């Protein structure tokens, strides 16, 4: 019984590989049909320029993307936590403001938010495009993060609070020793998804002239006309980045579970 | 007690049925059983004795590891095609009713006859209404199942299984999920069915019903048939120690 299952699995896997290969072939043929001249050889140069020993535009762009993500993560964490606390523990005014912030973010596109932030806050406070992007991304993801925190918090049974109160525990103690350990493992997967969303949304910063990966690629494509090679490469980079993040997330999740 | 019923030839024959679940728990240990046409067989026993598993193996929801199951002389084990076609012949009534909530009572009954047997809608509906009349729910045809009481829902489930005109009716603890005041109405319908000569195999906790309604009573424990015979004999003169222990627990 097992042997036939293995055989079936093998044929399926092989079939999938063949399909992927055929698809790739189709793509290439389609490109060729339009008179396109493939030139993969030039791509590595975009990463690193050996002649002049400096980083090529793509690698520079990747660096900017990483910086963008890192700073945004920090600010997102802060904003997400603050907003969640405002909605949960704040008075009606604070909670109302937080709710307003949330609804505005959730009902407008990120691109529009980026543009508004860049033009308006940029003009008022003289931001560079990079920091405008960090702000916009953080405001956006922070809203969603606060929702994650809030739902995690609310998911803990009321009875836990009541039991802790009857035992005489203070609020910070209750929160830290009782509530948080119960919500934390539940929160990890959505937080991982949020980080991946952040990586993907960072690409939109290209529309306000932040020279991260996507923007560099677009400029390069306009210059060299190597659209196919470039875009496939870029897609590959983002894919790898996100798969890496997912793998890291899964690893940390297992570690957290064992704590 | 049954009156003047004909017990016909073998309808269901189980020979040496064994089943072990993936966790290692052996639910059935070489169980053999024959249900004759027109007979009503009742299966009782403690929780975990394998009663439900037995029923589910017969109707095909679970696969047996070894042994043979025959329906009207035709071998079902190892014959996936035949087994598939024979599904509606083994009418199943579940403990949780499992009515389709998005369909009306009438639609619950007519769905399978139309889709599986290819009956015309009018024909299926008139048959369904007859069955609803029989189980005492003629006026509830258009309603949604969720609004009905537990007892009513189970009677609809019964009618739904009957709509396919099965060779055997299988009951998996049909009254266990019902409030006490509704058990009677379902048992009454089952008793009527038995009196009409339906072939029935009933797994139940209702000792009163088991005492009076069946032709034959089977006592299962730990995956085996421990005692088999007529109901009065079992309750008054249990032959085994296990049966005695069980009766002590339930008849306090």
């Amino acid at each position: 019984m097992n042997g036939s299952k293995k055989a079936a699995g093998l044929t399926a896997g092989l079939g999938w590989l063949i399909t992927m290969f055929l698809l790739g072939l189709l793509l290439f043929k389609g490109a060729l049909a339009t008179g396109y001249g493939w030139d993969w050889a030039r791509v590595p140069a975009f990463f690193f320029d050996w002649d002049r020993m400096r980083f090529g535009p793509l690698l520079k762009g990747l660096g900017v993307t990483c910086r963008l993500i890192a700073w945004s993560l920090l600010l997102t964490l802060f904003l997400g936590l603050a907003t969640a606390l405002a909605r949960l523990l704040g008075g009606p005014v604070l909670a109302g403001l937080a709710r307003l912030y949330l609804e505005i973010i959730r009902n407008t596109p990120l691109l529009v938010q980026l543009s508004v932030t860049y033009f308006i806050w940029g003009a008022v406070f003289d931001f560079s495009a990079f920091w405008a992007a960090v702000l916009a991304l953080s405001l956006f993801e922070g809203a969603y993060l606060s929702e994650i925190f809030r739902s995690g918090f609310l998911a803990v049974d009321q009875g836990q609070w009541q039991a802790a109160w009857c035992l005489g525990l203070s609020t910070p103690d209750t929160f830290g020793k009782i509530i948080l350990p119960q919500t934390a493992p539940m929160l990890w997967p959505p937080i991982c998804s949020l980080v991946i969303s952040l990586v993907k949304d960072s690409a939109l910063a290209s529309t306000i002239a932040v020279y991260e990966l996507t923007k560099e690629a677009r400029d390069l494509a306009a210059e060299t006309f190597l659209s196919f090679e470039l875009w496939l490469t870029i897609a590959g980079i983002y894919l790898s980045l996100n798969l890496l993040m997912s793998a890291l997330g899964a690893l940390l999740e297992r570690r957290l579970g064992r704590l | 007690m049954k009156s003047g019923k004909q017990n016909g030839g073998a309808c269901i024959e189980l020979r040496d049925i064994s089943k072990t679940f993936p966790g290692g728990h052996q639910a059935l240990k070489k169980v053999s059983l024959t249900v004759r046409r027109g007979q009503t067989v009742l299966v009782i026993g403690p929780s975990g004795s394998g009663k439900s598993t037995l029923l589910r193996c017969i109707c095909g929801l679970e696969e047996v590891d070894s042994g043979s199951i025959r329906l009207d002389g035709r071998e079902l084990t190892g014959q996936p095609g035949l087994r598939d076609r024979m599904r509606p012949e083994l009418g199943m009534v579940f403990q949780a009713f499992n009515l389709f909530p998005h369909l009306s009572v009438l639609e619950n009954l007519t769905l399978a006859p139309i889709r599986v047997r290819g009956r015309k809608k009018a024909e299926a509906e008139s048959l369904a209404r007859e069955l609803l009349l029989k189980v005492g729910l003629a006026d509830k045809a258009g309603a949604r199942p969720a609004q009905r009481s537990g007892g009513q829902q189970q009677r609809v489930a019964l009618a739904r299984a009957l709509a396919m005109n099965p060779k055997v009716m299988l009951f998996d603890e049909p009254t266990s999920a019902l409030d006490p005041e509704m058990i009677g109405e379902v048992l009454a319908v089952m008793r009527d069915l038995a009196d009409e000569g339906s072939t029935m195999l009933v797994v139940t906790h209702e000792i009163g019903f088991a005492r009076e309604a069946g032709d034959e009573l089977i006592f299962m424990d730990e995956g085996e048939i421990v005692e088999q015979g007529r109901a009065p004999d079992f309750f008054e003169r249990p032959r085994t120690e296990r049966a005695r222990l069980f009766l002590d627990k339930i008849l306090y």
Partner: protein
Amino acid sequence: MLVFLAAALGWLAWRVLVDFKYDWQWADIPQYILHRDSGGRFQLGTLGQGLALTLRLSVWASALGLALGLGLALARLGASLYLRLAARSLVELSRNIPPLVLLLVAFYFFGAQALPWPRLAAFIRDCGPGVQWLAEAATVRLGDLDVFFPAVAALAIYEAAYFSEIFRGAIQAADRGQWEAAWCLGLSRLQQYRLIVLPQVFRKTAPQLAGQFISTLKESSVVSVLSLAELTYSSMKLAATIHHLFEIWLTAAAMYFIFNFLLSLLFARLERA
């Protein structure tokens, strides 16, 4: 805590309104949303038309995405390992690549170069003004067809990944008893899906599907990079022309906001019904 926040907001407001020397010109804006033409009838202005195109894009992308998503969910739950792998690959691709990149890839591969869009446009024009009006009302100005369809395709694939997760979760969460009862009555696997499980799944997931449509409305702004005249791009172009940057962008944001917010309220209302 509240005092601190109030102070911060106050300072912010002061800088924006008082310190910031900008000549706010709101009066010009409304005509770009809706105006009266010479005949006295209402006509959509640039921004209004942009919103209309956003709506059309989203409807197409959501519809296709839903269908594709359902297919992917069924494939992932099916018996064929081949289909499971294929569906999983597509979903993972959509979920790990930025929609912007997905869009640009789709454009270069299926856009101007690859398929005969000009011929299709000419064909529709030849069919007569009635057909042309219908085609343009449903999609976009014929000249932009070569951008419209890759945009819809990319958006649909992106949304399909989310739809497939919604459907997959709901199908897996379906009560086992329903499957069993349907099976015992003799229904085939296809019938079990079509008649029993899927109708219930659609009912249960309706709010999530509605939410996904609203998400699509927002994601559609990404299409602006291809110069397709939906709301975001129209705002950009308008800003370049009449230079009232802030008013335009705030108006665009407000349009998205009001539209989406009202839609969510509508869906919440329908859900309760």
